[in-house]
């Protein structure tokens, strides 16, 4: 039994931040949950999907974040509680709906969780989503640890219902993707019946009137937040320095205080309701200190908003010094960590800090510099994308017209790096590879002679590339779309999608056939198995050279990590040492130096290639590339 579905009040369990958010929603009696997967938010809905049947919920992976928010909103309009989760890029997609929904208002509790990825570790960008709360005049909560992630989510539903507004929760990687003890509360047993009240209207018009009503709701939110338990101060009454922080910054600040042993000198104002800020509460605490340091991840959101409050009230607050991103005490890009915060505080109050003996640090650095090779990201062994990019690289070279690949978001974004042979040239929003191809596909009339290729994953296709493909046919663009169909949303944890035949909760679902859709959209469509590199190269060349208009090549091969879960390996692969000519071959280590699948290694002692049996998954693609045919495969 999953710990998030236990009705065991008082029990302490280990939960990931995302699981804690899911549990909070369950404790609030959520009924409808929808999302499109995206790190670091994916486990919120993923966790709920696992307990959906047991607890009688509707949980779905929607095709994109806008649809997900609409699905969750429908529950709210019908009087139920709805939850929607997404990553920062997802909110961009959903924002069109959200920035009407704020004006129309909602009914049942509606919570939108957005998990930001500071430093863009698993993202195509770095972005601070909190600006959307300000943009849309919507209440915003920022959990600072796991227990709070649960409590805040629960509370967000209450706030939402009281105000008739969706409430945003902004998490970050180190809250969502971290684990900690969480004490459970009761799960409600109520079974509310949904009903759409026909006397109600949900729309933004007249916009000005509704905008005014929205501002009134926001004022009420501000009043509510004055008493919020998610805002508190810890520290001396008159601190030398006050740290004002939200979200992950809270834990780093505490850590820094312990590191520096300055709990008696520095206070921490931890704010959980960061939009609208509880003005009186903030003013109250600004009085405590003359020097204030802001600790928050990505943009100076809290910093600027607090400064705004200060500016309005500076006459009676007196002079204050503010430190943070504007003063360069805290980097204004990337992720925070305990060191950054420790050093910022140390710098401002001048205390000694030596995390470890200097000579040890020196020895460790020397050893690292001498011995540690860099470890670049790479496609997994057996990944169909490696085979695909290999074929693309060969086909484009043979074609000889300097063709290029417009990229998209998914595991295959690694096509920009060495394991994708650097083939991918652009990376922006979901579906943008195909959208850009629509534009490039028109440039031949100006003399563009280079072939245009877009890549797009199966899940990404349903998410955002379908409109682009329709556009391509309608407007007569000329390009080749490679649909990398690995039958999963692999990057985010193998979630199902409309092409996989199952739903979020594991039920059978109708399959929306990629090939059929593309054909309906007027494309010339072919399907090939990327593991058959020769056929793939041949098909690519034929499509590039002989077909005009929109062409789609579906490269169908299941994600190796998914395959490993339900089927045996395809082949036992071996480098026959007597056939590998090694250093004398003249291939100059083609298999490892150029193809460089992690399942291959160069045995320095033998001067020959070898299969790393701990890594190789037996896809057999490398057997074709050896000029001496020394890499052999046998049916496993």
């Amino acid at each position: 039994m999953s710990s998030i579905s236990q009705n065991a009040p008082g029990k302490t369990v280990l939960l990931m931040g995302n699981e804690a958010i899911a549990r909070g929603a369950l404790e609030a009696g959520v009924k409808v949950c929808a999302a499109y997967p995206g790190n670091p938010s994916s486990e919120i809905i993923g966790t709920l999907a696992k307990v959906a049947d047991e607890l009688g919920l509707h949980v779905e992976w929607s095709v994109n974040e806008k649809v997900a928010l609409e699905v969750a909103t429908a529950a709210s309009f019908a009087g139920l509680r709805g939850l929607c989760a997404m990553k920062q890029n997802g909110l961009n997609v959903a924002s069109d709906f959200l920035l009407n929904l704020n004006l129309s208002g909602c009914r049942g509790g509606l919570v939108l969780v957005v998990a930001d990825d500071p430093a863009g570790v698993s993202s195509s960008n770095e972005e601070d989503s909190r600006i959307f709360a300000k943009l849309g005049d919507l209440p915003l909560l920022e959990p600072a640890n796991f227990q709070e992630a649960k409590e805040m989510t629960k509370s967000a539903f209450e706030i939402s219902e009281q105000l008739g507004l969706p409430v945003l929760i902004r998490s970050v990687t180190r809250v969502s993707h971290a684990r900690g003890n969480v004490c459970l509360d009761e799960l409600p047993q109520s079974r509310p019946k949904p009903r759409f009240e026909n006397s109600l209207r949900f729309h933004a018009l007249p916009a000005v009137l509704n905008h005014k009503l929205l501002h009134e709701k926001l004022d009420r939110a501000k009043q509510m937040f004055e008493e919020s338990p998610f805002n508190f101060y810890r520290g001396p009454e008159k601190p030398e320095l006050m740290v004002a922080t939200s979200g992950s910054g809270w834990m780093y600040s505490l850590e820094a205080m312990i590191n520096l042993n300055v709990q008696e000198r520095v206070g921490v104002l931890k704010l959980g309701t960061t939009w609208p800020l509880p003005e009186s509460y903030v003013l109250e605490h600004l009085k405590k200190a003359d020097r204030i340091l802001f600790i928050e991840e990505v943009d100076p959101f809290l910093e600027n908003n607090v400064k705004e409050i200060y500016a309005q009230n500076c006459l009676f607050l007196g002079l204050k010094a503010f430190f943070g991103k504007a003063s360069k005490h805290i980097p204004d890009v990337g992720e925070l960590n305990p060191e950054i915060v420790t050093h910022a505080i140390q710098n401002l109050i001048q205390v000694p800090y030596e995390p470890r003996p200097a000579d040890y640090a020196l020895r460790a650095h020397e050893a690292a510099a001498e011995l540690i090779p860099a470890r670049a990201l790479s496609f997994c062994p057996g990944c169909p994308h490696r085979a695909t990019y290999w074929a693309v690289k060969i086909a484009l070279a043979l074609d000889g017209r300097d063709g290029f690949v417009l990229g998209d978001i998914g595991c295959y974004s690694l096509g920009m790096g060495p394991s994708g042979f650097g083939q991918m040239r652009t990376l922006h929003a979901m579906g943008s590879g195909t959208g850009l191809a629509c534009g490039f596909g028109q440039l031949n009339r100006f003399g563009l002679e280079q072939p245009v290729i877009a890549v797009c994953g199966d899940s990404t296709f349903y998410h955002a590339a379908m409109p682009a493909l329709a556009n391509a046919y309608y407007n007569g663009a000329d390009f080749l779309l490679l649909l990398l169909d690995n039958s999963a949303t692999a990057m985010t944890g193998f979630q199902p999608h409309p092409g996989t035949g199952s739903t979020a909760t594991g039920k059978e679902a109708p399959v929306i056939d990629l090939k059929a859709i593309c054909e309906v959209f007027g494309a010339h469509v072919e399907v090939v198995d990327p593991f058959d590199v020769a056929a793939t190269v041949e098909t690519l060349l034929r499509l590039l050279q002989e077909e005009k208009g929109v062409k789609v090549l579906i490269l169908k091969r299941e994600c190796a990590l998914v395959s490993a879960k339900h089927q045996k390996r395809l082949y036992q692969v071996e480098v026959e040492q007597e056939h590998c000519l090694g250093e004398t071959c003249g291939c100059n280590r083609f298999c490892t130096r150029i193809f460089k699948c992690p399942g291959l290694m160069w045995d320095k002692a033998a001067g020959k290639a070898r299969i790393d049996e701990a890594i190789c998954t037996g896809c057999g693609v490398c057997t074709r590339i050896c000029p001496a045919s020394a890499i052999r495969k046998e049916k496993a």
Partner: protein
Amino acid sequence: MFISRDPFNVIIGGVGGQGNVLASQILGEMLVSQGYVITIGETYGASQRGGAVMSHLRISTKDQFSPLIPEGQCDLLIALEPVEGLRILDHYGSPRVMTLVNTRPIHPMDVISGNAEYPEVSKVIAKIKELSRRVWTLNATEVALEMGDPIFSNIVMLGALCAIEVLPINQQGFELVIKDLLPSRTMDENMKAFNRGREVVQEFY
């Protein structure tokens, strides 16, 4: 058995795909069931694709700590791969750190392609020893391969962790946790892997 510091900081590090997330989750669950307050920060997403990955575990009797361990404050390093162990010591090590290391290398792409050298494993282990108070070694991958699947190496490492008696964990605790976390059909093999790890780990002097 108790933790020797509070918080006691553990890092499990290796290469994406080696199962560090699962290892940290199992370890965390084992400790929560003993009443400890645990915080775990881990690497998800893109880095899981062949990159260097880490899980940070903070073990305390009273408080939650940041999911990232500060510089130089690792108490116990569980390295699923030798140079990754050294990479972690570079930032998180200190004279007090103890290290349990799987001696089987996984070559990074740069090494496979010949753009970089993978150092002699013995040299790496010697450096780790120089930078650690105590070191234990085993070839967990080899043990897992002998069992027929390298996927068990993280469990072998947890068995080894149990044997070195640095943390308050035991076999019963492991059994209870994996009953909850892992499919029941893998129970026997996971127990076997755990026990093999306990048997083969050796202190390195």
